[in-house]
C-alpha cells in the first residue's frame, strides 16, 4: 500500500485519517485521459458498451415511466439515506445490537487491511482452503480475493460475469455487468481454457450459444456450492432496527452462497445502513428499476442473524469504514455515500459509454467512480487528480440517480480541490499573469503592444504550439495575435499620440 493520501476534501473540520489507501493494483495507473485514449482505440469494446448501455438505459426508462411519482420516490430515497448518514453513529450501534441479538457476530474494520485480516482469521479457523463468494463491490474494493489467495485460500467468484472476469485474469469494467467488454466467443475460449484448471472442465463440445455457456457455468459452480463450508458476501442494505441484511441478485448464486455454507461472512460498508425495515419499501422500488431496468430482480435474500435449522449457523458481519467516515466529514461530498451501486449513472454517461470502466482505475467506474474515488482516496495520485475531469458535466447522471446524488456539482467542487492542491503549474502561472495584466490598463496596453509586435512577426499564421501549454496546443491551433490592437487602431485613426 503506497500512495499517501492528501488532506481532506472541501471544508472538513478535521482530518479523519486514514483515508482509503490506493490498492497496489491501481498504483501507477495512468491518469484518465491516457487510459481513456487506449480504451477508445478498442472498437470492439466501444461497440459492446454502446449496445449494453443503450439497452439497459431503454429498459430503465420504460420501467421508471410505469411509476407516476418516481420523483417523489427519489426524494424519499435520498431523505432516508441522509437520515441514516447524518446519524450514522446511532444507527450503527443499533444495527450492531440487533444483529447480535439475532445471533450474528459483529466485527469493525478501520481499513481494507483490517477487514481482510478479520475475514482471513475466520476462514482459517474453519480449516478450509476455499470459499464461495457472492458478487460484491466492497470485497473488490478491499481486494479480499487477493488477500485470501496470498494465504493459500481459493476464493471462487460465483456470479457468471465475475466468473468470466476471474477465469480470464481480467478486471471488471461495469458495476452491474462486469464482463460486458467480453464477447460470447471470448467467453467460450476462457471457459474451455480455464475451467479445468480450477474444477469441473467445460464440456469439450461447448459452443458460444449463451444458454450453453450459462449451463457450463452452472455445472462448474454447482460442485463448489454443494461442498462449500464458508460463504462470503457484501450486502445491499443493512437494516438497523431489525438487524436484517439484504442481498439483491438474479442468478441464484447469491442464494447458494448465502444459505448452503455452514459459515457466512458479510463485509458491509458502514454507509449501507438503513434506519428501519419500512425503508426497504422505497429502496426496493428504486434499486431494481434503476439498475437492471426490471420491476424487481429475480432473487432477494434477507436474513437476520442465525436461523435455527435453516442456512448458516455461524454468521459474521464486518462493518467497514475504509475512508467512508472521511467522505462523511465533507458537507457537500457526503451525498456520494447515498450511492446504492445501481450503475444507472454509468449507462447514461457519454464519457463512460466510450471509454469503458477500466480507464477509471478503480472498482467504482463511471460518474459515481469519478466522485467517489478522489473522495475516498484523496487526490494525490495522477488517476485521482484526473477523475473529476472525466466528465462533460452534461448532468445526465444526476437525472438518472435514484438517490439524487448531484454528481456534476461534486465534480466541479473536486476540480477546485485538485487545482488548489496543484499549487504552481504553467497554467496557474499563466492565469496569475493574466490577472495581473488585466487588472491595470497601462499593463494591458504594454502587453498588447508586445502581442501586436509578435503578430507582425508571425505574419498572421496560426500558432501550432506554445512552450508549456502542450496539452492545450496539441489538439488546438492558437490564432496569431492581430497586427494592431483596437486601442492602437483608435489612437491612429481618431486619437492623438501613440495610443498609450
Amino acid at each position, binding site marked *: 500500500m503506497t500512495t499517501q493520501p492528501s488532506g481532506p476534501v472541501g471544508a472538513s473540520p478535521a482530518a479523519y485519517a486514514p483515508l482509503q489507501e490506493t490498492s497496489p493494483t491501481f498504483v501507477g495507473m495512468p491518469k484518465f485521459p491516457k487510459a481513456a485514449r487506449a480504451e477508445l482505440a478498442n472498437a470492439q469494446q466501444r461497440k459492446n458498451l454502446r449496445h449494453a448501455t443503450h439497452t439497459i438505459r431503454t429498459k430503465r426508462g420504460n420501467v421508471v415511466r410505469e411509476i407516476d411519482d418516481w420523483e417523489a420516490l427519489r426524494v424519499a430515497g435520498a431523505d432516508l439515506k441522509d437520515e441514516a448518514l447524518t*446519524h450514522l453513529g446511532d444507527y450503527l450501534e443499533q444495527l450492531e445490537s440487533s444483529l447480535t441479538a439475532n445471533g450474528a457476530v459483529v466485527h469493525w474494520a478501520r481499513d481494507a487491511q483490517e477487514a481482510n485480516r478479520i475475514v482471513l482469521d475466520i476462514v482459517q479457523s474453519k480449516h478450509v482452503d476455499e470459499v464461495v463468494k457472492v458478487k460484491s463491490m466492497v470485497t473488490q474494493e478491499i481486494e479480499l480475493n487477493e488477500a485470501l489467495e496470498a494465504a493459500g485460500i481459493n476464493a471462487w467468484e460465483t456470479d457468471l460475469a465475475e466468473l468470466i472476469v476471474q477465469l480470464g485474469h481480467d478486471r471488471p469494467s461495469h458495476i452491474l*455487468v462486469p464482463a460486458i467488454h467480453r464477447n460470447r466467443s471470448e467467453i467460450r475460449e476462457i471457459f474451455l481454457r480455464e475451467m479445468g484448471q480450477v474444477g469441473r472442465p467445460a464440456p469439450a463440445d461447448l459452443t458460444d450459444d449463451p444458454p450453453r455457456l*450459462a449451463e457450463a457455468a452452472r455445472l462448474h459452480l454447482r460442485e463448489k456450492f454443494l461442498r462449500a463450508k464458508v460463504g462470503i458476501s457484501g450486502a445491499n442494505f443493512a437494516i438497523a432496527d431489525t438487524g436484517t441484511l439484504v442481498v439483491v441478485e438474479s*442468478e441464484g448464486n447469491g442464494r447458494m452462497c448465502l444459505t448452503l455454507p455452514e459459515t457466512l461472512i458479510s463485509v458491509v460498508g458502514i454507509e449501507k445502513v438503513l434506519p428501519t*425495515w419500512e425503508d426497504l419499501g422505497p429502496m426496493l*422500488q428504486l434499486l431494481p428499476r434503476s439498475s437492471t431496468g426490471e*420491476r424487481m430482480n429475480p432473487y432477494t435474500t434477507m436474513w437476520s442473524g442465525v436461523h435455527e435449522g435453516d442456512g448458516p449457523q455461524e454468521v459474521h458481519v464486518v462493518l467497514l469504514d475504509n475512508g467512508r467516515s472521511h467522505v462523511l466529514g465533507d458537507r457537500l461530498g457526503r451525498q456520494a455515500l447515498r450511492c446504492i451501486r445501481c450503475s444507472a449513472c454509468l449507462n447514461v454517461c457519454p464519457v463512460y459509454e466510450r471509454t469503458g470502466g477500466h480507464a477509471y482505475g478503480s472498482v467504482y467506474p463511471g460518474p459515481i467512480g469519478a466522485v467517489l474515488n478522489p473522495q475516498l482516496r484523496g487526490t494525490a495520485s495522477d488517476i485521482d487528480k484526473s477523475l473529476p475531469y472525466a466528465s462533460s458535466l452534461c448532468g445526465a447522471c444526476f437525472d438518472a440517480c435514484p438517490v439524487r446524488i448531484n454528481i456534476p456539482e461534486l465534480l466541479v467542487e473536486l476540480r477546485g480541490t485538485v487545482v488548489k492542491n496543484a499549487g504552481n503549474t504553467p497554467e496557474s502561472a499563466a492565469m496569475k499573469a493574466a490577472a495581473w495584466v488585466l487588472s491595470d490598463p497601462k499593463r494591458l496596453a504594454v502587453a498588447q503592444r508586445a502581442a501586436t509586435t509578435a503578430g507582425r512577426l508571425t505574419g498572421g499564421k496560426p500558432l501550432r504550439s506554445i512552450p508549456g501549454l502542450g496539452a492545450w496546443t496539441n489538439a488546438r491551433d492558437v490564432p496569431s495575435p492581430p497586427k494592431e490592437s483596437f486601442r492602437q487602431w483608435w489612437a491612429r485613426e481618431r486619437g492623438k499620440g501613440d495610443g498609450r
Partner: protein
Amino acid sequence: MSAREEILQRVRGAVADVTTPVGQRPVAPARTMHDLSDAGALELFAERVADYRATVIRVATADVPATVADALARLGCRSVVVPSGLDPAWTAGLDAAVTVLPEVEATSHAQLDAVDAVVTAAKVGIAVTGTIILDHGPDQGRRELTLVPDTHVCVIGADQVVPDVPDAVARLRPEVGAAQPLTWISGPSATSDIELNRVEGVHGPRNLVVVIAE
C-alpha cells in the same frame, strides 16, 4: 482505541455540523395503490409473474391438487421434496410413480440436488412487481428446498396478494421482527451477463410455476 470506538468517534465527528435530532426526518408518504381493487391486483399479479417467463395458473382452491400434479407431470418431474407443514391435500393428486421426499428426510445438499422439484406455499405476493415472497415457515420449508431442485411449484392464495412493494414490506414486519429469513422471487433465476442475452435457470430453479388459488 478499538476499531469500533475509533470508527464511531470518526463518524460522530464527521457529522458534528448536523443539528436535526435522530429520527426526525421528513416522513415520505406511503406509496400504496389504493385504487387497485382486489380483482385488479390479482389480474396484474398474474400478468406480471407471467412476464418473467414463469408459468401462471389460476384455479379454484379445490383444483390445486390436480393442477400441481399436472404441472409436475408436464415438466417430467419424477421426484419431489415437500416442506413439513405443506397441506397434504396439495400433493394428494400426484401419480403413484412420483417419489415424495419429506423435508426432514432430505438432510444433505446432495439429496436435494438429486430431486426434480419442490412444492411450497408462499407468504405474500406483490402485484406490481410480480413477486412471490417466502418467509420459510413450515409450509415453505428451509431456504435450500426452493433453491437446489430445478422446478419450483408455488401455491399462493388470492388473499395473499398485495398491490405494491411497501404493502408487502408492511405486511412482513412481524416475520422480520421475529428474525425469520425471507426470499423474494420474481420469475426463475436468470442472467444477462453474456452480451445481455437473458438466459433462465443459471443456479436457482429453471422452472417456476405459480398456482394462484382463488
